[in-house]
């Protein structure tokens, strides 16, 4: 049985809010990180393009977190999202 989709708040960093009408938080209905990104692509394409490149890869200087856990690795898009989770989009630290 597949995971159950649930309502997940998506925290948008200040530098990306211009891509979604100034909103600091969006909501997706998703069971995994991959599903959340797919909904961003459909509903907020400018935000999605800032997070993922044309191949669907998360940009090198963007980090995704579920709560305080960094989402990374080969199966990162399968990371489950559960009721109460918060999905964060963050600019990665760059420079010294």
């Amino acid at each position, binding site marked *: 049985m597949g995971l159950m989709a649930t309502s997940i708040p998506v925290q948008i960093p200040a*530098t*990306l809010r211009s891509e979604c009408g100034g909103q600091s938080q969006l909501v997706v209905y998703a069971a995994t990180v991959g599903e959340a990104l797919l909904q961003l692509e459909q509903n907020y394409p400018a935000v999605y*393009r*800032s*997070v993922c*490149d*044309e*191949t*669907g*890869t998360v*940009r*090198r*200087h*963007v980090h995704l977190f579920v709560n305080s856990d960094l989402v990374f690795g080969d199966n990162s898009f399968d990371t489950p999202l559960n009721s109460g989770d918060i999905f964060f989009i963050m*600019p*990665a630290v*760059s420079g010294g």
Partner: protein
Amino acid sequence: MAERLILCIGTKKGLFIAESGKTRHRFELRGPFRPGVGVYSALIDQRGTKPTIFASSCCPFFGMKILRSTDLGQTFKETKSAPAFPKDDGRALANIWSLEPGSGKRDLLCGVEPASLFRSKDGGNSWELVPGISNHEHSRQWHPGNGGLCMHTIVREGNRMHLGISTGGHYLSEDGGKTFNASNNGVGAGFVPDPYPEFGQCVHKIATHPDAPGRLYMQNHGGWEDRPGIGVLRSDDHGHTWRSIAAGLPSDFGFPIVVHPHNAETIYVVPLDPATRTCPENRPAVWRSDNGGDNWKRLAKGLPKKESYFTILRDAMTIDHLKSPSLYFGTTTGQLWIGRESGDQWDCLFDSLPPINCVKVAVV
């Protein structure tokens, strides 16, 4: 309104606009627009009734944008979209290196990294990949130079189109951009066993003049002791064959090459030491030829005489089209210089900008 001179200065940390009257005595600076974001290419498009400025905004965090200004660089807005590879292509846009007018009134051409060409038919709001070069059979064999695998030069000459790719070489279309062939006969390479390969050269810049159809000048990646003279080249047959015009220069390595607006025989280069990419003996100078590359003259009046360690990048030198034109170059140390009287007298206009990637000028 009296004619004004507009300079677009693309830097590592945003776009600046400098404006002056035709005397070019005093320039006023505004910006940065998109502060903190690299700008590698700009275009002052004068085809319409009102000039439009375009610039690439290349954010390493969140991707690429095209900026557009219809008020001479007072304000900039993003176009509705930027070039992007089709989803199933497998390539992702890494940088925007060139913006040039296309053949139609609102057509734009855009060269990107990884080396590919995009075309817009609506002033930059939507873009399509130009397959003739972007999916060329050679394209997966090109490889990046120090600046990345970039299509940095787009030169239109009637139905012909010349492209400069680093490292891919010179590609020529003679059917308006539908198909392209590598056209590097005489263009050398110092970093592969074959000194004159079919393609794969590290072309740095190509320049033409509208009054001299068929004539092209190229700054290629020179500086090879065992393959001398391959860095500065000229073609007189629309880029089918090339010959060296480097004799007389202190180095055949450099990035920009610029043609005088009123004389196709007058060209400018900035020779650099190939190892340090700074001017020989750390004394910057622009070199001018008044006879199509047969002889060269050093122009350094007003430039520092010692202890200068900057590089001038491929798109960081340009020339205006006034009766007595001035040259402009920007440095990787953030200085913008003006070479008055066709480069005979140099003055520093701005000395503390961010590192400069590109400089474009227009009289509007």
